[in-house]
């Protein structure tokens, strides 16, 4: 059976050009970048080249890039690093209600250690209102963290407008407030200029942009106070000791370079396929609805709620046909609570349990979209027939 992948938001396959770039750095060019001999110098320069490539993707300077083990570490480093480095200035953090768990659970951890956190509400599309940010900021606020685009529902946040109100409130209060964004879903997918967005810290993960797993980056604007995350080495400007993941970093750099060059055309192509899938499913399945913003959303994300049935049984049924998707239903996550993102946008529990996400990518074809359009509506019909909530109309 031909398998079809509609879960690019979970992870992407590594681009073959990226793999080619990485291969020499396993056994041919294996030196430790901290060594002063030629073996070390060739990997050192490879890491610095990758740093330039990643910096260029987001309009940053190479010295402002800290390589990490991935998006989760970048988020952890941002929250803990800012909180602990600025605890004399203040004890208050602000996050949105639709953040990734890498942010929410860091905030919970910090709350147990004497910090306070305000969770901002979002509207029915998942958008944060900049006026709410202004309202939440106080003299003791040290960090605002709002993700660039949501991983589940795809909604893109008005970061520049949020940065503007932070700047105004900062000036009025004479406070030092840093602005962080989790750009794991957008880096390499949407154009990013850190200055235009007005952020001080930004998290990226390589495996979401056709790079390898186990590597990511934290952008840190010059002058931002941040504690070290790993102690025991001078790597990454002393912010993250540990011998560099050279093949991973080289692959990340190559993936960033490719993404920067191919992003614009790819976005148009994927958005067209996504819209075909969206229109086809919403028309072919009665009582289904789009989740997330209708236009301010990632070009590759489609999240819909199918009334009267549950997400995991949809996923299992699709998987039996070789189609991979994702759901915000609790039943697939190992917990019993449905997605906090779907609850935050106001979906009642039973509709949150009935959500399904299709995320497209650069290897998605129109034939694959057609296959989902053919396979999925009958699956819905079959499951609805079993559902006590569904009354035949």
């Amino acid at each position, binding site marked *: 059976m031909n398998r079809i992948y509609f879960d690019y938001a979970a992870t992407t396959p590594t681009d073959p050009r990226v793999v080619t770039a990485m291969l020499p750095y396993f056994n041919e060019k294996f030196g430790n970048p901290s060594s002063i001999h030629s073996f070390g110098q060739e990997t050192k320069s490879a890491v610095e080249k990758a740093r330039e490539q990643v910096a260029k993707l987001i309009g940053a300077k190479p010295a402002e890039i800290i390589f990490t083990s991935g998006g989760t570490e970048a988020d952890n480093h941002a929250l803990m690093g800012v909180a602990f480095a600025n605890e004399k200035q203040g004890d208050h953090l602000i996050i949105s209600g639709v953040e990734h768990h890498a942010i929410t659970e860091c905030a919970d951890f910090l709350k147990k250690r004497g910090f306070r956190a305000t969770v901002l509400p979002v509207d029915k599309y998942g958008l944060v209102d900049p006026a709410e940010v202004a309202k939440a900021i106080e003299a003791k606020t040290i960090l605002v963290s709002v993700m660039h685009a949501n991983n589940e529902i795809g909604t893109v946040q008005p970061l520049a407008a949020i940065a503007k109100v932070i700047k105004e409130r900062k000036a009025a209060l004479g406070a030092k407030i840093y602005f962080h964004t989790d750009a794991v879903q957008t880096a390499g997918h949407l154009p990013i200029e850190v200055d235009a967005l007005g952020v001080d810290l930004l998290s990226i993960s390589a495996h979401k942009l056709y790079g390898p797993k186990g590597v990511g980056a934290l952008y840190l604007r010059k002058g931002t106070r941040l504690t070290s995350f790993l102690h025991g080495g001078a790597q990454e400007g002393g912010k993250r000791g540990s011998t560099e993941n050279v093949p991973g970093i080289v692959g990340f750099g190559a993936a960033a370079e490719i993404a920067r060059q191919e992003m614009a055309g790819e976005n148009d192509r994927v958005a067209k396929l996504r819209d075909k899938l969206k229109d086809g499913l919403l028309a072919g399945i009665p009582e289904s609805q789009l989740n997330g913003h209708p236009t301010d959303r990632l070009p590759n994300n489609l999240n819909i709620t199918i009334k009267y049935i549950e997400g995991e*049984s949809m996923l*299992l049924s699709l998987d039996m046909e070789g189609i991979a998707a994702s759901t915000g239903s609790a*039943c697939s996550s190992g917990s*019993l609570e449905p997605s906090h993102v779907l609850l935050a946008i106001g979906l009642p529990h*039973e509709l949150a349990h009935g959500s399904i996400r299709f995320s497209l990518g650069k290897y998605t074809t129109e034939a694959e979209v057609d296959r989902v359009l053919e396979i999925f509506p009958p699956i819905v019909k079959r499951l609805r027939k*079993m559902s006590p909530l569904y009354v035949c109309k």
Partner: protein
Amino acid sequence: MASNYSEKVMEHFRHPRNVGEMENPDGIGKVGNPTCGDIMEMYIKVKDDIITDVKFKTFGCGAAIATSSMSTEMIKGKTIEEALKLTNKAVAEALGGLPPVKMHCSVLAEEAVKAAIDDYLKKTTGKGLPGFKPSEEPICEH
């Protein structure tokens, strides 16, 4: 994900037994709630103290559908007394085991059977199942 389930669970998910509604059932059991993401409805026909037919409808995950299906198979043709001995563990075992986080589905299946019998007894004897209290509050954890 699919690999978390045994072959038997997947088989019952693919081909659930006794799905549907029943005309004039002798007992109806409704358990679970939409908040938790699973609802089971079970309908039984009883003749001479024997469960002659069972049907179910379930809103829920793969395990919820499979445990519903398996429990209907396990009580069909049984006496009320035998059906009351059905435990959630027996349902899970018959399915070749369930992931720990899905054990609550088997509890729900056992409760659905008991709720249907409770309803049948209420209708026929005026008294329900002694000591049976279906949980009305939305408690997702079992």
